[in-house]
């Protein structure tokens, strides 16, 4: 009788042991070396991962995740080898700055056009976004239009530099996506920009 119970317990432990290994979340470094942080939550608890190369394991929804523990880079590489092979390159982004309330490029930014063209050719990119932004001086509506005009100026410059128009998309964010957050109606030269994203 005791033997049967022990045996049953043994199998249960085995099962739990297997299941516990099945779900795994590993915090990774980003391509540029940054380490973020995340929280893993089941119905019964949660754990925070804040160190790269550490992992939590989850048996099921009704069990709290395991505390973070290191995982070897060999194990991680082995588990995720296939996904790693097709993982896209992080898009490269270039910022071009404009004069106050104007769609005229600053002189330094004028020189970046050649660098962008080189990046497009190097990556053989057919997916280039030209994204206009403004600072928060002026109305939302005015800034939306200004951000569009700024994007259009860059689009035309890139097109003149032999980048196919069919490979480019114009997007404009007005003042909604500042590089440097400010209060409304604050002039901030670093937000007066067009971002060219080469994907």
């Amino acid at each position, binding site marked *: 009788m005791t033997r049967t119970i022990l045996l049953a317990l043994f199998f249960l432990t085995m099962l739990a042991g297997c*299941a516990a290994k*099945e*779900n*795994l*979340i*590993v*915090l*990774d*470094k*980003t*391509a*540029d070396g*940054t380490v*973020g*942080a*995340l*929280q*893993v*939550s*089941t*119905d019964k608890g*949660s754990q*925070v*991962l*804040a160190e790269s190369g550490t992992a939590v394991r*989850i*048996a*099921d*929804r009704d069990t709290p*995740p395991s505390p973070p523990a290191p995982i070897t880079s060999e194990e*991680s590489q082995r*588990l*995720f*080898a*296939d*996904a*790693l*092979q*097709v*993982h*896209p*390159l*992080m*898009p490269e982004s270039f910022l071009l700055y404009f004069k106050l309330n104007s769609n005229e490029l600053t002189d330094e930014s004028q020189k970046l056009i050649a660098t962008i063209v080189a990046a497009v050719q190097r990556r053989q990119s*057919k*997916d280039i976004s030209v994204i206009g932004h403004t600072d928060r001086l002026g109305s939302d509506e005015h800034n*939306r239009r200004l*951000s569009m005009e700024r994007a259009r100026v860059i689009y035309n410059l890139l097109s003149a530099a032999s980048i196919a128009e069919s490979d480019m998309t114009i997007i*404009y*964010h*007005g003042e*909604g*996506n500042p590089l440097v957050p400010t209060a409304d109606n604050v002039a901030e030269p670093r937000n007066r920009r067009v971002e060219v*994203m080469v*994907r």
Partner: protein
Amino acid sequence: MNKSLLASLLVLTLALLPFTTTSAAPKSIGKVKGLRGLVSIQRDGKMKPAFPNDLIYQSDVIVTGSDGAIGILLDDNTLISMGPISRVAMDKFAFEPATNEYAMRLKMQHGTFIYQSGLLGKLAPHAVELQTPVGRISMLKEDTSFRAKIAE
């Protein structure tokens, strides 16, 4: 008179409704950047094979075969890759900084995943929902990258 005017306005509004709801062309939310083996996209109840540079749409479900792998770049620069025998549902995605619309709900149903957060993680971290059958993953910092293995 007033009544009939109201009635005709109502009829007109009702007649126009179907057009206003269907006229918005579906907007893509990302693109296939890396691909290996057989990968299928389930869209509007149909399965179609995925090819490099294919567009991804909201509500797509992406399924990899036993030799399949796919790397996807979403419009906000979120990167998601999956290895073989994996399945993800792109339930919801909105990235419209011009109008402050941000949303993302991905269900990583099973398989192996690599995730690198993009601009949504920076501009609206609380709008990002990553679900798995065993629990959810929330970003506590922008620029977070993780790998996940979810059992079938």
